[in-house]
């Protein structure tokens, strides 16, 4: 770095700090007047400072709809100290805009409009972007199996792999397997309702369950009213209904504690029924009334088979959708060929992909294939001719972690006019861009449209559905996770290409057409992909939802 640049940086730092004297100021201007490189550097530094200011001062973000209120009345203002001027100015601008929009088109339009700018301005995402401490997670138990579950009212649907926090967990029908962090496993048979209290304890309000408690989890307890069932390392069933509570021990021993009747031990093959009045009767255990783990496994397998069959039927029909320009179903698990067959109908082998490095592994279902991308060179090379307008990308992916700055889903080689790049940032945002202008022009190459961060460590190793819709008519880009919209933003007209094209591209990685010995940017995905659809149209929300619903494992 040249001495002048270094001097400039020092002078600028003093200026920002209010400690630059007149001579220094004149010196700074002198450098800028005479040195073109210094001018460029100066602007870079200034832009960085401006960006830091924007990051730091939450007041610069446009206010939320909530703080503005429906009537867009200015929020009550404290006598602001002078450094709050900035904040005020922005708020005023937003309010002017808000007032006008409300007057013109009502609240809906306001929501629509504000969502876009605030998506890029809002700073609430900072906790995710800049962890200052070790990441933490919440929960006392994990959902490890769900079979034919119908969620009752007031229960948010959870998915296999989700962690459960203390609170009510209810299913209307079906079976849910829950693994408590202490090591105890419970199969709940709907209708059932339980209150999770800790990693060692829950209260059963009603329903039937089977608990398996390995030695490491001894002491796991279930409460029923004022009765407590403490497991001493065993397998037992518990059924709670208005007619009373029924404890049956299949293996080992449990201790039943009662307010009136202190402690009773129940051993394998025995049961105990507590009537609503409180009287207790001993019975023999009838294990087959409670669904066991092998049975649940079989039911889960059945569900897998039927979901796979449903997906198979759906995939057969989508393959001939005339809007599809590329379609890879990865449904050839036993193939040894290093070719990823194009699934488009009518068949066109020209669209087959060449597998480089990536390994064949099981996909969403055991019978279905997928490709695993792990190493820096792993990818599938494809060649997709033609020129298009709008584009829709949709894929099923199982991400292990987001290790790279850019984690590729689907990228054209290089990045020329009209070519799209679809990837995920290490911060967990879907990152979509399409080059609008040729390289030679001085104009900005594109407008990147990112989703908010969707990634959390709990998603690691789970199949998720990602989609991005680019509408070339309006410039609107919508990002989706699991069939739901993450956000929408609009690329301004000046940064829209006239046409889109793919040509040579890679799935799960990015290839730069460079010299053979040049180093390449590492952008491979760390995870699996088992379906990729590319449409030459902007699909609607319903259609994305449909792809997700028909494909969820």
């Amino acid at each position, binding site marked *: *770095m040249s001495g002048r640049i270094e001097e400039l*940086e*020092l002078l600028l*730092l003093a*200026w920002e*700090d209010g400690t630059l004297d007149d001579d220094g*100021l004149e010196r700074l*201007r002198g450098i*800028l*007047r005479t040195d073109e490189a210094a*001018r460029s550097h100066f*602007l*870079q*530094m*200034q*832009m*960085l*400072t*401006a*960006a*830091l*200011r*924007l*990051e*730091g*001062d939450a007041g*610069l973000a446009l206010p939320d709809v909530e703080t503005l209120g429906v009537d867009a009345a200015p929020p009550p203002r404290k006598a602001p100290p002078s*450094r709050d*001027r*900035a904040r005020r*100015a*922005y708020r*005023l*601008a937003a309010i*002017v*805009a808000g007032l006008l*929009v409300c007057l*013109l*088109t009502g609240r809906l339009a306001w929501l629509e*409009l*504000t969502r*876009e*700018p605030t998506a890029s*301005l809002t700073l609430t995402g*900072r906790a995710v*972007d800049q*962890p*200052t401490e070790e990441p933490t997670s919440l929960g006392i138990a994990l959902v490890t199996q769900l079979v034919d579950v119908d969620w009752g009212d007031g229960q948010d649907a959870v998915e296999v792999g989700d962690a459960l926090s203390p609170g009510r967990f209810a299913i209307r029908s079906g079976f849910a397997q829950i693994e408590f962090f202490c090591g105890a496993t419970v199969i709940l048979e709907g209708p059932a309702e339980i209150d999770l209290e800790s990693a060692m304890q829950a209260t059963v309000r009603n329903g039937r369950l089977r608990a398996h408690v390995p030695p490491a989890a001894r002491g796991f307890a279930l409460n029923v009213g004022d009765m407590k069932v403490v497991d001493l390392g065993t397998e037992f069933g518990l059924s709670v209904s208005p007619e009373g509570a029924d404890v049956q021990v299949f293996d080992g021993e449990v201790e039943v504690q009662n307010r009136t009747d202190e402690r009773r031990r129940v051993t394998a093959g025995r049961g105990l029924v507590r009537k609503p009045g409180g009287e207790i009767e001993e019975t023999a255990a009838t294990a087959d009334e409670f669904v066991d783990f092998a049975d649940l496994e079989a039911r889960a397998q059945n569900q897998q088979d039927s979901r796979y069959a449903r997906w198979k039927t759906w995939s057969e029909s989508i393959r001939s959708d005339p809007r599809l320009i590329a379609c890879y179903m990865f449904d050839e698990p036993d193939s040894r060929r290093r070719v990823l067959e194009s699934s488009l109908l009518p068949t066109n082998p020209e669209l087959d992909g060449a597998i480089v490095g990536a390994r064949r592994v099981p996909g969403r279902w055991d019978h279905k294939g997928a490709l695993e991308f792990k190493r820096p060179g792993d990818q599938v090379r494809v060649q997709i001719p033609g020129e298009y307008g709008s584009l829709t990308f949709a894929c099923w992916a199982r991400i292990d972690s987001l290790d790279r*700055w850019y984690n590729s889903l689907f990228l054209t080689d290089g990045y020329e006019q009209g070519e799209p790049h679809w990837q995920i940032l290490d*911060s967990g945002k879907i990152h979509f861009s399409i*080059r609008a202008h040729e390289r030679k022009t*001085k104009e900005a*190459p*594109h407008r*990147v449209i990112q989703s908010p961060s969707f990634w959390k460590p709990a998603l690691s190793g789970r199949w998720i559905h990602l989609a991005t819709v680019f509408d070339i008519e309006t410039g609107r880009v919508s990002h989706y996770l699991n069939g739901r919209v993450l956000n929408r933003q*609009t690329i*301004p*007209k*000046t940064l829209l290409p006239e046409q889109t094209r793919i040509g040579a591209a890679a799935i799960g990685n990015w290839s730069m057409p460079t010299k053979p010995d040049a180093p390449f*940017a590492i952008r491979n995905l760390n995870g699996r992909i088992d379906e990729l659809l590319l449409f030459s149209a902007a699909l609607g929300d319903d259609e994305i939802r449909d792809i997700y619903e028909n494909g969820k494992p």
Partner: protein
Amino acid sequence: MDQTSSTEDFIRQLAEHQNRLYGYVYSLVGDHSRAADVVQETNLVLWRKIGEFDSDKPFLPWAFAIARFQVLAHLRDRKRERMLLDESLVETLSAEAGQQATQIDSLREALRQCLQRLQPDHRDLIERRYYRSMSVADVANALDRTVSAVKVALLRVRRQLAGCVQKRLAAES
């Protein structure tokens, strides 16, 4: 396009480009609250000139031209206050400032990634100086270090951030 949707489009663009306007103006005035004032004045002027707004033409060059004019007016109105740049330097720098400000969203995204990679004490330094607007002397006081040590550290961290951001931006395109 009817008038209502043209007005909507105008507001949409205005809101969308606030950060770019701020970056542009900040780089020419080098002061946070002055920059915010000038941006607000620019917003008002743009609003008054809504009649000249043509949604088929790029918004940003138009907005930058008006912002540049507002920066110059600001310099003239406050002759007695010390300003970072004089009029001729503003004229010289404005075109490139506009080009760079266009990319401020990408820059911010890159910056966020780069901030994550800073050592905790370096990030702390940046947060104190730029998020909480502490003076170098105050930072030095709080950290029990000398002013010159903080200056050197700030320069170094900024250089590191700038380098990281430039690399990221280059990787993006």
